[in-house]
């Protein structure tokens, strides 16, 4: 078995205080590997997004460890953690969170700009990633002029522009119709996934399960089993 890209051990996360205090993650342990497209499925409120946030260095767990490529990310300070996300993680948010006042190419260039690349150089390079997702001809348009599927592809281009080792996709098909959703995830599997990259997807869309390497089921803050692929 190769070394995992992500190794989470006994992760616990609580939200709220007093009587409203609830446990979102109840000692979750999971490994994710390079070259795999790992789905985490489960009903709403089961803790999928919380787990994704903890694994990607966005939400600090109350206990447990998360190691990415062998390093415990939650021992890092806030600036180092930001650098970790910038250099190692690519995010595709559920609502895309594209910047409507920027062009499509400028949106894609954001991770490069945060990496202190010159503006014109970053935008030029972003166009290459737009070409990968088939939207080079939309480079100068604002995202609001694009369809939902196209916006999702712009979000994917932005996520991979920083050449991350790990791609995090939160409900990537939630805002899309069935065919478009399948096309997008299929595109990601065939064009974005490679042996040096791990893709984590949170979804409850069964129609895209055919693209998963492995599917883990989550309920009430615990991983309850493997729906597809090897053991959790």
């Amino acid at each position, binding site marked *: 078995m190769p070394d995992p890209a992500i190794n989470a051990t006994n992760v616990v996360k609580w939200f709220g205080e007093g009587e409203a205090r609830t446990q979102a993650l109840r000692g979750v342990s999971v490994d994710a590997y390079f070259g795999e497209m790992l789905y985490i499925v489960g009903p709403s409120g089961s803790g999928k*997004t919380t787990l*994704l*946030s903890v694994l990607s260095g*966005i*939400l600090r767990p109350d206990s447990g460890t998360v190691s990415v490529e062998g390093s415990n990310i939650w021992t890092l300070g*806030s*600036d180092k953690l*930001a*650098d*970790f*996300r*910038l*250099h190692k*993680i690519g*995010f595709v*948010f*559920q*609502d895309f*969170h594209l*910047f409507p*006042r*920027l062009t499509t190419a*400028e949106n894609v260039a*954001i*991770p*490069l*700009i*945060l990496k*202190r*690349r*010159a*503006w014109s150089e*970053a935008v030029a390079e972003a166009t290459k990633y737009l070409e990968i997702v088939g939207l080079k001809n939309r480079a100068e348009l604002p995202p609001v002029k694009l369809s939902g599927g196209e916006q999702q592809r712009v979000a994917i281009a932005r996520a991979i522009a*920083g050449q991350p080792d790990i791609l995090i996709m*939160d409900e990537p098909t939630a805002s899309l119709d069935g065919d478009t959703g399948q096309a997008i995830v299929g595109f990601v599997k065939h064009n974005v996934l490679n042996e040096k990259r791990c893709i984590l997807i949170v979804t409850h869309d069964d129609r895209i399960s055919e693209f998963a390497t492995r599917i883990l089921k989550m309920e009430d803050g615990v991983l309850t089993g493997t729906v597809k692929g090897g053991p959790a």
Partner: protein
Amino acid sequence: MRGIHKLAYKLLVNDKAKFTALLVGITFAVFLIIQMTAMFAGMMKRASATVINLGASIWIMDPAVQTVAQTIGLPDYVLDAVRSMQGVSYAVPVYSGGALVKLANGTYQSVTVIGLDDTSLFGRPQLIQGKIEDIYGENAFIVVKDPEFPKLGNPHVGTEFQVNDHRGVIVGIAQVASSGLFGVPTLYTTYKRALQYLPNPRFTTAYVLVEPKSAGDVIRIKQQAEALGYLALTKDEFIDRISHFYIYQTGMGTNLLIMTVMSFIVGLSISGQTFYTFVLENLDKFGALKAIGAKGRELILMILFQASFTALTGYGLGIGLCVLLITLARLRLPDYAALITYWNLGLAFVMVVIIAAISSYFGVRRVLRIEAFDIFRG
């Protein structure tokens, strides 16, 4: 421009409605602040016009004098006493008073008459027509060509008129550094003729103008004048005394302060609220940037850049608008008293910086509080 700055710039200016509202707020506030303080500075300069134009280093006056127009006659011995003071190079009397001029068309016009020392003509204006020695001619007056000049029917050398029922003739046209506050033309003549033409109380010397032998003698002259029971002020001190009178004893200063504070509040309200709304509307974008890997200080830098850019652009537009208005006003009203100084530019700049700082403070607080996790939760 660094990438992060350009990103902040594009997010700001591409939101045209918000950016316009922000600029309008700042521009309006700067315009009001500069316009009011410029009018005040203009009026203060006009109020000290005689002091500036005569240009004497030291003015000796009755201690009750508050403004240059409010003259209190000095007994004749004061001039002799001053001339005998240690450190005085020379001292001359000057007359300053009002008169009524009857123009050729039969209308009357109030004027200010300055009577210069006959011997030295100390404080004489710069002539643009005529010769200064003609002031010694019969009934001779020199008229100042300032915005009030047309009120005398645009006279020329040789124009005749009546001053308090005496014949007067223009022998020269002069220009001065500053025109007066009260909207009346100014005539120069000799001290003796002024006394001869104008009704006078017992004491006729308005001020004794003094030139010290050296700068170090100023304090000594002031002390000697005080011992004599009079007040000696340098030119700058006299201008300050006049300004002090208008600021603190006429209500002008209080009104200026109130209007300046109101302008500041208007600017802060419009710009602060609009900028805060701008930040709130982009909160998810800042959260997304945070999730992608932007550091807290980079987000702060973006907000400060946006606030500073808006503030400086609005500041420039406000100044431009103010200059435009003053220029247009002067085309219509040549004696429109407004003067943009470094002082009022500085005041407006400080206020704009405060507006930008307060606006960005609340934006920064919100942005730092947003958790990248909130973006995931939607």
